[in-house]
C-alpha cells in the first residue's frame, strides 16, 4: 500500500495537517505569521547545505531554522530595530544567501521549484517516518507547554507574575515551528508552509468561540484541504502543494459566510 505515491502523499498530508492546526493557532494568536515566513525562507539555506554536504535534509533544515530563530531572539535583545524589520532582514538575507550558494552548486541537479512549492508526490517512506515521528514529538511537546504558552499568549506579564516561564516556553515554541518547517518543506514547500499554518486557522477563527474549538476546527480545515486538494490535483493535474493551499483559501472564503451570519443574524 505504501508503494502507491498518492497514498503516501495522503498519509504525509494528514500528518502535517494534524500539526499545522494547533501550531497555526498560536502563530495567529501571537501574530507570528511573518516570523513563520522567515523561518521557512531560511529553510532554503538548510536544503542547500544538506545537498552540498550530503546531510539529512530534515535535520539540516531544523538546525538552520532553529539557529535563525535564536539569532532573531538575540538581535531583538541587542538592537533597537523593530521586530518586523529584523524579520525582513533575516528572511530575505537567508533567501538571498541560499540562492547565491545555489549558484556555486551548479554541478548538482537541483529542483528549486520542488523546494519552493513542495513536491508531495515525491514523498518517500523515510519522509513519512520523519513527518509522523517528528509530528508526534512536536504535538507531545506542545501538549506539555500548552498552559504556560497559552497564558503568556493572553498576557505575558500575568503569566510571568504567576510563576510561569514565558521566555522559556516562547523559545520552545519557536523551535517547534522550526521543526514543523523541517518536516513539511518537501510536501508543501517553503513559500507555502506559512499558508498551511495560517489559512485553515483563520477559517477556524471565523467559526469558533473558544480556543479548543478553534484548534479542532483548524485541524479539520487542514485535513479537508489536504483531502480535497490532493484529489483535485490528481484529477486536473495541477501541482499538489499550491492546490491544497487554494482549497484552504476556498474554505476560508466559505467561512466568511459563517461569520456574517454570526454577526448580523
Amino acid at each position, binding site marked *: 500500500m505504501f508503494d502507491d505515491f498518492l497514498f503516501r502523499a495522503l498519509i504525509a498530508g494528514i500528518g502535517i495537517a494534524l500539526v499545522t492546526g494547533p501550531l497555526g493557532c498560536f502563530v*495567529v*494568536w501571537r*501574530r507570528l505569521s511573518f516570523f513563520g515566513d522567515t523561518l521557512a525562507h531560511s529553510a532554503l539555506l538548510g536544503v542547500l547545505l544538506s545537498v552540498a554536504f550530503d546531510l539529512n535534509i530534515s535535520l539540516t533544515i531544523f538546525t538552520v531554522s532553529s539557529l535563525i530563530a535564536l539569532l532573531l531572539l538575540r538581535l531583538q535583545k541587542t538592537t533597537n530595530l523593530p521586530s518586523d524589520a529584523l524579520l525582513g532582514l533575516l528572511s530575505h538575507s537567508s533567501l538571498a544567501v541560499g540562492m547565491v550558494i545555489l549558484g556555486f552548486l551548479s554541478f548538482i541537479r537541483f529542483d528549486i521549484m520542488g523546494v519552493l512549492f513542495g513536491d508531495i508526490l515525491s514523498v518517500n517512506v523515510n519522509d513519512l517516518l520523519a513527518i509522523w515521528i517528528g509530528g508526534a514529538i512536536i504535538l507531545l511537546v506542545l501538549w506539555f507547554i500548552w*498552559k504556560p504558552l*497559552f*497564558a503568556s*499568549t*493572553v*498576557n505575558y*506579564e*500575568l*503569566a*510571568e*507574575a*504567576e*510563576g*510561569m516561564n514565558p521566555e522559556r516556553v516562547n523559545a520552545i515554541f519557536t523551535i517547534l515551528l522550526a521543526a514543523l518547517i523541517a518536516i513539511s518543506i518537501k510536501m508543501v514547500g517553503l513559500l507555502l508552509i506559512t499558508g498551511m499554518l495560517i489559512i485553515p486557522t*483563520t477559517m477556524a*477563527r471565523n467559526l*469558533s*468561540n*473558544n*480556543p479548543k*474549538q*478553534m484548534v479542532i476546527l483548524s485541524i479539520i480545515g487542514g485535513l479537508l484541504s489536504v483531502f480535497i486538494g490532493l484529489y483535485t490535483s490528481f484529477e486536473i493535474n495541477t501541482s499538489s502543494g499550491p492546490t491544497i493551499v487554494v482549497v484552504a483559501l476556498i474554505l476560508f472564503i466559505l467561512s466568511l459566510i459563517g461569520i456574517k451570519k454570526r454577526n448580523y443574524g
Partner: protein
Amino acid sequence: MTNNPNVLVKISNAGIQKSGKWLVKDVNLEIHRGKIVTIIGPNGSGKSTTAKIVLGLHKKIEGNVQTFTKKISYVPQKVSIDWTLPIRVLDFMVLTEDLKPQEINDALNLTGVDHLISRNLRDLSGGEFQRVLLARAIAKKPELLVLDEPVQGVDFAGEVALYGLIKKISEKLNCGILLISHDLHVVMSATDYVVCLNGHVCCSGTPVDVARDKHYKELFGEKSSQLLSIYEHDHDHVHTADGDIVKENV
C-alpha cells in the same frame, strides 16, 4: 533578613533605571499576610513599576527584593485580548491554574459576574471585564494578590462594593494584598498601610497618617485631605520635574 512568618514580600531600597532616568527609586515596603498595602500616587509616579518589582517582572533592578511565597495572583492594569483569540470567561478563569467548576462559579459569584461565564471576553464591558479579572485572581486562592487599579471602569457603587470585597478576601484567605490606586478616599477603609509614591516614597503609614502628611497634600491638593484634621510638619525638600529630591535651603 526577616524571620517574621507573616512577611510575604520585603523590598528594600528598590529602584529601577531606564536610559539613565530613575523610574522609581528607594522604595521600601513589606507585605504581610492578611494585610492590605495600598500604593497611591499621580500618573507616572512609578506605581505599576513598583508592583512589577514586587512581582519580579523587572530583571535589572537596584536594591533587594525577597519573596516568600509562590502562590501569587496578579491583576494587571491593562489586559487586551486580540480578536484572533476566541476566549470565554470560563477559559480565562483557568488560565494559570486548573480549578473545579464550583471554585470558578464561587469566585465569579463574589464579584457579581457569574452570569457571564460563557460570554466571550471581548464582548464584556470595561467594568464587567475588571470584575472577571478580579474573580480569576481570587479563584486561585493566592497568598499574595497584586491588584493594579482593579476597579477602573467600574461604576461608583460597584467600586465601593469591590473594595469591600477585597478587604473581605484578605481576611478570608489571609492573603497579603498590594493594591494600586490613584484615589485614597475610596480605598481608605479597606487599607492597612499606604505608600504614597512620586518617583520615590513620599510618605507612608496608616491611611490617616498619610492623608495628614504635607507631601500627600502637595501631590493631591489640599482638598483631598480636607475631611481629616490638618497636621503640619516641616518639609525639607522639594521635587524637580522628574521626581528627584532637592534639599531646600533651611
